[in-house]
């Protein structure tokens, strides 16, 4: 018979240790992931923020060194208010803040791109194994459930690491090179660790969640829709609730202004009218400031951002990177009456970071629970 033409040869090659078994799954998953054209394009696009970050840090390095290459650029940046005059005068004073804000912007864009990368590669990771009943093939080999899950998580980690952590490390190094000053290492090393830590938080929390969702259905499409629901719907819901609250506060404020305006006396002289309008303007200004202060104060206990999945990740990121402290320092360049408005404009939600940490830890726990139930061992009756 032709099937025996080649014969069977014994094989006596080396086998790797059990500790690296998960890596075979990761390697295979990465290989499969790279086969998708759309995924490759999105991965490429996700590297663009890193290019922008690298450009910004290099430019900043040149500005710090007061290089001739950027001599003409600084006044333009100042005139377009990209740089405050104080920053341009003594850039080293604001080194940490500028780096922090650059990294923060990088992460805020990268967070969205990460969600897209996950929706492209994550849903099929376990759901397709369920659909094609691949578990007996995995578990009958020298592999534990934890190796299987570790391998699948490794696929997410590989792609997100490539889009987030690796660019962070490279751009950090590039920024150091362009600054040409060893003191920057002392000033910014914390930022490097914070970036890696934040990247790992995104990878582990999002990775576990998409794996848990993927283990709930045999259809990758449903999993993708579920993921989009968690990401987008939670974001919209949180935004809508926050908007509603702001609108309520504004309505109360303008109601008070309208009440004052309607109290116009019938026999008012011109001088009285002028004084009344001035008083009204002063009152309005003070009320706006009060409203902003109230807004700031309310944001310290506002639970609404907790509904949004990405807002929670973002809050942890801001805490790790020290973004709020950077804005606080930059606000000192503003004239005192403008500081609150500046901060109100740029600071994000001010509720305690550990609220978000609690939500993310809870999601991680729920994901782990779902996975332990869905990815079952074969120690059961059929």
């Amino acid at each position: 018979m032709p099937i025996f033409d080649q014969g069977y040869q014994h094989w006596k090659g080396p086998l790797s240790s059990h500790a690296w078994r998960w890596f075979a799954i990761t390697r295979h998953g990465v290989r499969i992931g790279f086969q998708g054209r759309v995924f490759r394009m999105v991965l490429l696009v996700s590297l663009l923020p890193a290019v922008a970050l690298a450009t910004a840090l290099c430019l900043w390095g040149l500005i710090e060194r007061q290089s001739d290459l950027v001599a003409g650029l600084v006044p333009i940046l100042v005139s377009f208010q990209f740089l405050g005059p104080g920053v341009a005068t003594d850039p080293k004073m604001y080194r940490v803040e500028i780096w922090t804000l650059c990294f923060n912007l990088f992460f805020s864009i990268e967070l969205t791109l990460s969600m897209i990368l996950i929706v492209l590669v994550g849903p099929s990771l376990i759901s397709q194994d369920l659909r094609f009943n691949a578990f007996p093939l995995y578990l009958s080999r020298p592999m534990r459930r934890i190796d299987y899950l570790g391998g699948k998580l490794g696929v997410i980690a590989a792609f997100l690491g490539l889009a987030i952590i690796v660019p962070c490390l490279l751009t950090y190094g590039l920024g150091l090179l362009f600054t040409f000053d060893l003191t920057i290492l002392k000033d910014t090393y914390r930022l490097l660790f914070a970036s890696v830590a934040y990247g790992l938080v995104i990878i582990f929390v999002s990775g576990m969640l998409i794996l848990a969702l993927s283990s709930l259905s045999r259809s990758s499409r449903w999993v993708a829709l579920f993921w989009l629901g968690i990401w987008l719907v939670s974001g919209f819901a949180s935004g809508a609730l926050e908007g509603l609250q702001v609108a309520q506060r504004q309505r109360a404020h303008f109601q008070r202004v309208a009440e004052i305006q309607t109290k116009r006396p019938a026999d008012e002289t011109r001088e009285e009218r002028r004084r009344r309008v001035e008083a009204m303007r002063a009152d309005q200004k003070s009320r706006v400031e009060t409203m902003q202060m109230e807004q700031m104060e309310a944001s310290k206990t506002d639970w609404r951002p907790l509904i949004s999945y990405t807002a929670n990740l973002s809050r942890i990121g801001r805490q790790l990177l020290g973004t709020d402290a950077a804005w606080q320092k930059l606000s000192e360049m503003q004239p005192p009456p403008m500081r609150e408005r500046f901060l109100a404009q740029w600071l994000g939600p001010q509720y305690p970071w550990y609220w978000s940490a609690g939500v993310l830890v809870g999601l991680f726990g729920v994901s782990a629970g779902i996975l332990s139930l869905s990815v079952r061992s074969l120690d059961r009756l059929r």
Partner: protein
Amino acid sequence: MLFQFESVTKTYGSIVALDNLSVSAPTGAIGLLGPNGSGKTTLIRSLLGLTRVDRGSGQVLGMDFRRRQLDIRRAVGFVPEDECLFPHVVGVEFVAYAGELVGMSTKDAMQRSHEVLDYVGLGEARYRKVESYSTGMKQRLKLASAIVHDPQLLIMDEPTNGMDPRGREDLLELARDLALNKGMSLLFSSHLLPDVESVCDQIIVLGRGKLLTEGNIQQLKQLHQRSFEVRLKTDSRPFCDRLSALGCRSETREDFLVVQIPDGRTQQLLWEVAAQEKVQIRTLRPQRSTLEEVFLKALEQA
């Protein structure tokens, strides 16, 4: 010794899957027989360390099956009964991936994948998506992925289920070749007794989680003392009538007769009747039990 179980008990709630089972199997090709729910699959999973037994001890390929599950699975190849695939890969990637999961390097796994795919007759389909394979091809693919790392023991769980006769014969031929010519021990679980008989030289029969019988197939298929297979050259009816008159029972099977002679008589009786009826006996030999009879007898004893 291929494996050895001592007083192994495994329960799932109130269901006893393995009931104080003690069994040992020598190297070679072993058939695992038993009706549904007899504990075959649990025994296989226990061998692979996939189930945690309640009591008992044992060894598989000289390794404690309760402690060294990963080492055992590395030395064993398993062809599961269910239809199961690694999705979205072509045949050669499928088998190479199976090798990588056991610990082979990417290069070794790919090279070996080509070799075993040629061996199982899927050489020409190696670059096709596995989802497009027929049932028979999928079975051969699973066999290829089970032997990619050249295991000492190959476990096949109902490998011919749902296959057409040609595909079934091809798969049995491969199993036979691996067991007889390539020195790979084989544990072959099947409901189809002819399949087991054509591949294995030993059997283990389970029933309700207990060992019903075990041993060499040829020895289990014992010779009958008063039952003979007789093949005649001419019409057998007068011969049968004459035997009936003498207290014999005869039964026609395909192209021969099975004749049971009464106590106190020998096969000489058959020669005498043939001479009297002037018929020519072409074959006369003691009847041997079929594997089916051995199996049914074991079940009756349970």
